[in-house]
C-alpha cells in the first residue's frame, strides 16, 4: 500500500519521466531510471510532508530512497 503511494509520488515528482508502474516494477535503483536532482528533491519533500519523517541526506539515506521496497518497509515500521 505504502509502496504504491510512493510509486505515485515518484511519477508526480518526475513529472511522468518515470511512471508509477515503472517505479513499482523496477529491478534497478530509481537513480538508474534517470531521476533528476530536482525530481529527487521534490520526492523527498513530498514524502516528508506526507509521512511526517525527515530524510537524512547522506549516501545511506539516498540508497534508501533508491529502493521503494526498503523505503516502504522503513516508513511502515515507524
Amino acid at each position: 500500500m505504502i509502496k504504491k503511494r510512493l510509486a505515485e509520488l515518484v511519477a508526480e515528482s518526475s513529472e511522468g519521466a518515470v511512471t508509477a508502474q515503472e517505479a513499482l516494477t523496477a529491478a534497478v535503483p530509481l537513480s538508474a531510471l534517470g531521476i533528476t536532482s530536482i525530481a529527487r528533491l521534490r520526492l523527498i519533500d513530498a514524502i516528508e510532508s506526507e509521512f511526517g519523517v525527515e530524510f537524512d541526506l547522506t549516501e545511506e539515506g539516498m540508497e534508501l530512497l533508491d529502493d521503494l521496497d526498503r523505503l516502504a518497509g522503513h516508513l511502515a515500521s515507524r
Partner: protein
Amino acid sequence: MNAGFPTHVEFAGPGSGTAPLTWGQRAIWEAIERTAPDDHYFNFGRLLKVPGGRTAGEIVEALAALIERHGALRTRLGEPGRSGAEPYQRLEEKGRLPVTVAVGDPDRVLGELAARRFDYAGEWPMRVALVLDGDRVTHVVLVFCHLAADGLGAEAAVRDLRMLLLRGGRGGDRLRWPDASQPIDLARWQAGPEGRKAARAAAAYWESEYRRIPPTMFSAPSDARAAARPPIWRALLHSPALESAVRSIAHTHAASTSTVLLTAVAALVGRFTGHETCAMLPIAANRFRRDTANIVATMSQEGLFTLDLGGGGASSFTDLLRSAGPAALRAYRSAYHDPADRNRITALVGSERGMPIHPYCCFNDMRFADPGPAACDPGEITAALARTSVSWPMSQDKLNCRFCVHLTTEGVSLTADTRYLPRPDIERFLLELESLLVETAVR
C-alpha cells in the same frame, strides 16, 4: 512606420499590498547591491516568436493579461523610509508599461533593452519590445529585472504569454487555468511557521559547514601585474567533447550531468587552490514544492556544496562522484534559506574563526534542456576535441564573486576576478576541466 502602434500596456490588478522581500528577492537584491553600478549584469531576457499572425493590439492585450496574472510583474521595490531599514516589496494593481517598437535582429533588441540597469523602485520589472518585419510583429522581446523572475520564472511567463497569444486576447473563458502563485503570498508563507521551520533546518546546515570549510576558495591575490583591466573577465569554452564526456560519465555512474560537472569543477578548484575541502555555491532552482514549481518569481538561490577531495588528489574522480550525489542534494536543500539567517551565521562564525567566511565560488547550471545521460563512443569523444574553442565574451569592473562557472547551451563559461585568478589561469582551468572529463569518460 510606427504610427498606430501601441506605446503602452495598460494593466489592472488584481491585488495590491506590501510584504517583506521573499528569500529569493532578498538574495538577488544583496547581489545587486554588491555589483552596482554594473548590476545590469543580472538583467536577462527572452524572445517569443509570435505564433500565428497576431496584431500589435492583440499582443498588447495578451501582455496585459500576463501582467495581471502574475503579481511579480506588477511588483517593485518599496523604498525604505529611513536609511538602514529593510527593503520590502510593493505590489500594485494598476499601471502602464511602456512598449518599445523596433526593427532588426531580435537578439540585438534584447541586448539593448537589457543593457541598462533597472530603476528598482520606480520602473516596472519587465521591459517589452515588439520587433517588426514590415507591418507584422514577428517577436516579442521581454527583459526581466532579476527581482521579478529567475530563468525558470521567465520561462513560465513566456509559456503563459504564448498560450494567451494562441488562444487570443485575454484568453477569456477558454483559458481556465488555476490561479498563479504570487510572490507576496510566498513572502508571508516564508515568514510563517512552515517557512521558519524550513529556514531553521537550512540555517543549521550552513552553520555547521561554515565552521569547517576554508574561509574562502581563492584567497591569495595574484601578482598585481597579472590583474587585467577591467578586473572581471569571462572565458567561454565551447566543447562538444566535454559535453559528450559529461553525458557518458553521467550514464555510467547513474548521476545527473549537472552533478558530474559540479563535481569536476570542485575537484579542479581543489587542484588550483590546494584546498582539501572544496566549498562552492551552486545556484539551485528552489522549485521543488508544488506551489512554487511554476511561479513567476525569483526562487533561485545559492546553496552550499561541500566536497572533501581527499588530500593530495588521492580520491579518483569516480570516488568523488559517489559522495557528490548526496552532497549536491544537501546543497540544493540548503539553497531554500532565509538570507537574513545566512548573514547572521556568516557574521557569527566569522567572528569565532577570526576571519571572514565566504566561498566566493559559485556554479550556475542555466541549461533548460539538459541533454541527459547517454552512452557515447570514446573514439567520437576524443575526435570531437578538434572542435574545442575558447572565446572571451565579456569583461567588466565589478562583480559580487571571484569565481563563477555558468553552464549554458553555448558551453561552460568561467567568469573570474583576475586579481585572484589571472586570465591565462581562467583559460587553463576550462581546458583542464575538459581534459579531466574526457579522460574519465574514455578510460
